């Protein structure tokens, strides 16, 4: 096994080179950092995996000159004074509002001639055809927020005028050590699990005690579209024809602006020019993964992870504690399906532990039993790591898959089949099967539990789903060469 691992690493090096990377770091959400952002609002087209494309209106970076779906993720630091300068290239007025923060720029709603019946915008707007407007706020609290148009929202929010804001906490510069095992609330199988101390330097919130520390973070900004509505905006609205909003019914669902399977393609792929962000959570076993959920649609979505529960630690940008940073009751809640409500944000921590699977997915000997919450990278690297055998129910040493595998010609294998049910193990693959998982990760679906949402215009599978990958090896995003072809880009594991 060691030989194979080495070989793989050599292969990565050969394939991508090990030069300093300018692409997103492996733990951080894609986006733009800073405190001054120049945005445009314009129209573009969203590409869907069924071969269609739909018109959208989106915010974009003025430097790129084009809108994107969703708008650029703005990443700022707590305490920053943030200025967003909006240039509106759409025909009608567009504005920008951020629930949960107090603006220091003007907030008065737009009542032309003071007329209540002529309200056009909840906040000051940039007029159509090149108008500009500046919005300023102080990011006094960390957390997950969003910006969206405050003008003609019935149409503009359905068209895509929204984007995420991440405010990083001040305590990110400090190191805090916590017991990540004790924080699992709902663990009846193993109530007395031994303490697992881990230190973090990245946190979701100014929690004071490190309880929101994480190893990796991923954004899930979800939205939906009714193609009939998008076509109405493109063709019928300019002719003055009405749209019956009571008949609006979503038939496309997006995570970070992409419908599956595009969610799993690499960021910034050339065939999705307006949809730069992907959504494919990749992590090591037992790593703490922060999931930032934002629902910019109009429907509720039940988001489901398999395998382990999520621990929701914040809602609407507020830590779920009565007294953040000091002794207070813990209001965090655990669930395997989280309701994503329109306009709401939720931050949840997820850890894949593999507990209770019934076999030793690590495939280690008895002298090297992994602890229930032990990160495998650490484990694999340090053979002498202290064995934690009490209490708990780690799988028996070398416990094999508790089923008899059917004959190869009776198996249906996914593209991520590595040939072995054990993490980090490869085996010979049947001809024409697998091949997208040379590093033997464990891939499984994260998705909306409203099954109709797993389609693209009624074609299954698609829509609101992605694959989460439990990756046994040290991770690092590769540089993406310009000449990478499409099939390579659907194999993110090739770059791990």
């Amino acid at each position, binding site marked *: 096994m060691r030989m194979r691992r080495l070989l793989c690493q050599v292969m990565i090096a050969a394939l991508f080179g090990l030069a300093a990377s300018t692409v997103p770091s492996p733990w951080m959400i894609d986006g733009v950092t800073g405190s001054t952002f120049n945005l445009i609002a314009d129209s573009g087209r969203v590409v869907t995996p069924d071969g269609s494309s739909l018109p959208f209106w989106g915010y974009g970076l003025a430097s790129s000159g084009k809108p994107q779906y969703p708008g650029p993720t703005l990443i700022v630091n707590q305490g920053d004074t943030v200025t967003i300068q909006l240039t509106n290239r759409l025909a009608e007025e567009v504005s920008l509002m951020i629930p949960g923060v107090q603006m220091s720029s003007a907030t008065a709603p737009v009542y*032309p001639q003071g007329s209540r019946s002529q309200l056009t915008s*909840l906040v000051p707007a940039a007029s159509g055809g090149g108008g500009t407007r500046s919005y300023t706020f102080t990011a006094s609290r960390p957390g997950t927020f969003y910006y969206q148009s405050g003008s003609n929202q019935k149409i503009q929010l359905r068209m895509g005028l929204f984007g995420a804001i991440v405010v990083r906490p001040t305590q990110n510069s400090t190191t805090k050590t916590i017991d990540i095992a004790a924080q699992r609330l709902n663990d009846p199988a193993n109530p007395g699990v031994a303490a697992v101390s881990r230190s973090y330097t990245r946190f979701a919130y100014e929690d004071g005690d490190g309880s929101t520390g994480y190893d990796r973070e991923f954004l899930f900004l979800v939205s939906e579209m009714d193609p009939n509505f998008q076509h109405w905006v493109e063709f019928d609205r300019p002719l003055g024809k009405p749209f019956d909003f009571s008949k609006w019914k979503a038939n496309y669902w997006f995570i970070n602006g992409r419908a599956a399977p595009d969610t799993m393609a690499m960021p910034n792929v050339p065939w999705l020019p307006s949809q730069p962000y992907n959504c494919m959570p990749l992590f090591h076993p037992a790593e703490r993964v922060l999931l930032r959920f934002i629902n910019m649609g109009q429907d509720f979505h039940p988001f489901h992870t398999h395998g382990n529960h999520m621990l929701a630690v914040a809602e609407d940008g507020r830590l779920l504690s009565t007294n953040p940073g000091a002794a207070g009751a813990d209001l965090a809640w655990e669930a395997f399906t989280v309701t994503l409500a329109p306009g709401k944000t939720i931050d949840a921590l997820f850890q894949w532990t593999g507990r209770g699977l019934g076999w030793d997915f690590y495939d280690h000997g008895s002298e090297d039993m992994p602890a229930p919450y032990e990160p495998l990278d650490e484990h694999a690297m340090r053979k002498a790591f202290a064995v934690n055998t009490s209490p708990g129910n780690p799988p028996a040493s070398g416990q094999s898959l508790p089923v008899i595998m059917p004959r190869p010609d009776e198996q249906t294998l996914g593209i991520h089949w590595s040939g072995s049910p054990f993490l980090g193990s490869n085996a010979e693959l049947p001809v024409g099967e697998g091949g997208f998982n040379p590093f033997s990760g464990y891939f499984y679906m994260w998705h909306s539990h409203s099954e109709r949402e797993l389609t693209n215009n009624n074609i299954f599978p698609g829509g609101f789903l992605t694959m989460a990958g439990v990756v046994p090896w040290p991770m690092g995003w590769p540089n993406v060469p310009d000449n990478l072809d499409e099939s390579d880009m659907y194999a993110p594991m090739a770059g791990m």
Partner: protein
Amino acid sequence: MRLTAPKALRIVLTAVTLLLGSAAAHAAVVDVKLRAVEGVTTMPDGRSVPFWGFSRYSTATLTASTLPGPTITVGNGDTVRFTIRNDLPVPVSIMVPGQLFTPPAKILDSTAAAGLPAKSRVRSFNAEVAPGQEIAAVATFASVKPGTYLYQSGTNPAVQVPMGLYGALVVTSGSAGQTYPAALGKAPSAFDHEAQPVLFGEILGRYDTSLTPPAYVTLNEEVTAAPTVPRSTVDYRPIYHLINGKAFPDGNDIDVPAAVAPATTSRSLLRLLNAGSRDVVPSILGNYFSIIAEDGNLLTYARQEHSPILPAGKTLDAILVRDTAKGFFPLFDRRLGIDNAGATLGGMMTFLGDTSCSPAKGDIVGSDGKITYTDVLALLRAYVDGGSVAAADVWPLDASGLPCGDGATTIMDVLLVLQKASGRNPY
């Protein structure tokens, strides 16, 4: 996010508090006389919408019904007896989810739906009042518990609730300035100001493009004809989204005052109710709701949310904390029920804040909803005469751009109103 404090101690303390606190102030018997009758309301686009509603009446004065029905306020521990006079063509009843009552024997309906065999089905959750009848104390809710509740018809509710037979029942705590009796280990529910309840609802049917020409097929008009067979509302898709029976821009801004020095904060109680069939997400801009109670149950800890989920049939009690800065907070349904039959902006939208900062200030002649040169001339005349016009005290605009005024009518007010009349200052 630390682990919880000793739970046992808290439970004991809570139990003690409950025992001591249950000796409520004088519990009274409150008789509420409601008349159920058809009414007509007008939407902002001019459409007349028939509805079924409640009104409080006396035998001498038969008042018209309102949408929603009147807010009924009673005290903690009171016994509420409903007397109903039914002027609708169908039987009606009253129920209050969250308050105890003794259900009657099953009330069955064996009328056959069109094309279906006759089968008995439950028609009502509570004792009915037949068309043309008046029954005293037809529904009694003894020892009501404090909080925010919906009252609604319990008869064929799939039809009668969308038709408008609902309203808010507020049960006060018995202590001034407290939403709920103070209880150890519970969220603080004290307030300085109680805003009017914010009751979400929706009305009128769907636009049917299969007809020639396409037309609105209205549940309301079909149902006011009182069909004799049960009617399915499975395709009922309302096109008007209402707060307190009104679609924006009709309806009022909701007075939620800023703190007045020397106080640094002011707590306003906002009761949120959803009588519609659709879940809504009341989203507030520029502030957070502190959610202290659900369905009349005080929470242990308040939740800070700017976009809480308010499902159909549910109530939330929220405290809005304000400092001394004056201003307005938009409140709208983030599920985008913010149009009037397709025309935006409208629907479930309102503004919370200081009415003295209303962006529509300056409309002093005829209150026609619009600032015109007539308003400017009237204001100029008042200014020259040395008079004071509070409704046009728009100078200075504060940092938010809102016309909070300075308590005096000056030439600056006249100039600013002139700007608004000419469309040069839309804020």
